[in-house]
């Protein structure tokens, strides 16, 4: 098992390098000169040269890649073309907000998804099962950015009980866990939770149905075990996979939050990406995507490692 874990970690390194390379390429597949957006139209050739050297665009691709990676490893993701501030600062400020939103959304999605999935799997082929299955199909089919708009229409425009956009009263103050702030979190988090909810419900339903169909459960029933006892057995057997799915979904939400953050003007990485794209701020775009993708790769690794330690059946040598 130790060997498996070690191999799993080592296997992640080339993936991370590949991910970094793709992020590096992003700047180079983009058409036009990235400096155009900040240069005045009448900029002298002298000034253009200076900025080229400053951002390193005058060196060979390989040199640029190596020095970019080297600086990224030291926490330097370059300088935002639009604001002139370090990309790393901007990204990490935004990551905190996105992580909070995605984390709360995952918890909501996991709780209700497991509940629906469990009930559906336990009472397989009953009306409860069909209703839960229908709900999970709705969950994976709904365009979540539209769902966000609909929730704003209902709760902000119509009922006027929850704020529509932003992350707290009075602009960008520090986050506090009080109602004044939390009410801003509710709509985006609920919208976002729909994505993992459907998938977790499907997974849990299949898991529970599988486990109940296995012979050891029949054996437990025959031995006279109570329903509660069987319930605990099922939970214990379903937990590793369900947790793994939850972990991966958190990763997806981190990367997929851009649409929802745009709808709710939530100041996270999605919002940052959006402004980077429209101001053609390529270093910022590159840095944000690198951080999010690395998060996802590491989360994947973490989930695999946890699953291996939790599940005694996985004896990968």
């Amino acid at each position, binding site marked *: 098992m130790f*060997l498996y874990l*070690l*191999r799993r970690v*080592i296997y992640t390194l080339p993936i991370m390098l590949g991910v970094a390379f793709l992020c590096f390429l992003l700047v180079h597949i983009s058409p036009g000169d990235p400096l155009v957006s900040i240069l005045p139209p009448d900029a002298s050739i002298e000034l253009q040269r200076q900025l080229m050297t400053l951002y390193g665009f005058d060196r060979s691709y390989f040199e640029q890649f190596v020095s970019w990676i080297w600086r990224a490893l030291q926490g330097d993701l370059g300088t935002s073309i639009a604001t002139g501030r370090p990309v790393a600062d901007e990204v990490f400020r935004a990551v905190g907000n996105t992580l909070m939103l995605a984390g709360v959304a995952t918890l909501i999605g996991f709780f209700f998804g497991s509940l629906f999935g469990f009930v559906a799997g336990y009472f397989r082929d009953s009306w409860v099962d069909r209703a839960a299955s229908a709900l999970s199909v709705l969950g994976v089919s709904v365009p979540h950015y539209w769902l966000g708009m609909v929730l704003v229409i209902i709760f902000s425009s119509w009922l006027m009980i929850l704020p529509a956009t932003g992350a707290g009263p009075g602009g960008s103050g520090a986050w506090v866990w009080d109602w004044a702030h939390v009410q801003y979190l509710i709509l985006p988090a609920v919208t976002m939770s729909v994505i993992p909810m459907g998938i977790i419900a499907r997974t849990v339903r299949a898991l529970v149905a599988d486990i109940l169909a296995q012979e050891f459960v029949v054996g437990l029933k025959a031995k006279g075990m109570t329903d509660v006892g069987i319930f605990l057995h099922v939970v214990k057997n379903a937990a590793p996979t369900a947790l793994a799915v939850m972990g991966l979904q958190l990763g997806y939400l981190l990367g997929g939050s851009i649409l929802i953050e745009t709808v709710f003007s939530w100041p996270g990485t999605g919002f940052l990406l959006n402004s980077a794209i429209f101001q053609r701020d390529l270093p910022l775009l590159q840095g944000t995507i690198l951080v999010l993708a690395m998060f996802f790769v590491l989360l994947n690794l973490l989930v695999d490692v946890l699953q291996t330690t939790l599940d005694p059946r996985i004896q990968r040598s």
Partner: protein
Amino acid sequence: MDISSKPRQVHPPLIDIRDRGGPAQPMLRVRKLFKHFDLKKSFIESLAGGGQVVRAVDGVDFDVFKGETLGVVGESGCGKSTTARLLMHLIEPSGGEIIFDGETVGTPGLSLREYRRQVQLVFQDSYSSLNPRLTIEDSVAFGPQVHGVSRREAIGRARDLLARVGLEPRRFAERYPHELSGGQRQRVNIARALALEPRLVILDEAVSALDKSVEAQVLNLLMDLKDAFGLTYIFISHDLHVVRYISDRVMVMYLGKVAETGPAEDLFERPLHPYTGALLSSMPSMDPDQRTQEAPLTGDPPNPINPPSGCRFHTRCPMAEPVCAEQTPTLASVRGQRKVACLIHEIGSGHSQADAAIYAA
């Protein structure tokens, strides 16, 4: 000599123009053929030390004579099927030589493509060996088309062959494999192998998966076809009764090595290698007077990853002595056409029964 005991016709009906060396030249000579599979290992494991190899086939020598049926027997995992695939070059040998009718297979020599036209293989699993998306006539006609025969002609040949193996073309030619029974599918596989007009056909457990009654029909079909087309067979099976019934000569394999070869009747009557003896004694007999005398084989064959030293059979052999763990026996002629790899039959080998056995022979 009792003529009735050999009902089969031994001579091919026509002289084959492809026959280069004449009847005295063996169809196939196999020399020191071996295949070692590297066990999959990761980067880290390879840092920890050298990888392990499976010695699936470990230096095998044998000849197949023209017009004969060579039976190959042994427990599962002894390297029979690997040998078949090596002979077809479906897996690349790690070393050794295959000489087909006097020509070495591979460049320079007989090209693989030309060789595969003359040597064909029939697989055990009749299901997996037919493409479910092709009609059986298309499956049979595929080989000739690969070798440049027009589609029309190939289909014609396929239909002739289907009729020859007992499948009425008008009823069967356009059916799909799942619409046939196991025995019928195996007939299709035989027709497919014959479509390239091979001279040597390797039958790898070709009847093992069939019901006993169907098995007998297919065996008879195989013997008819052999006479009609002047074929040579290598017949691989774990079923000793069937091998005895169909073979002219038999080769016994154990853990990737040849234990013993000889004419079928003689070998079954007087096994020389203790392993052959043990195999035969595990064979149920029809005659209650012929009760099993020798100790049957117990346990599984050892792991081919780390085969036993010396004679590979010494861990299970009832006659094993300390010398057997140290000295590797060589496959040598004993008398007539018999060859055996056992220290008991090697002069001066150091085995206590060696000289007695040789004088008795």
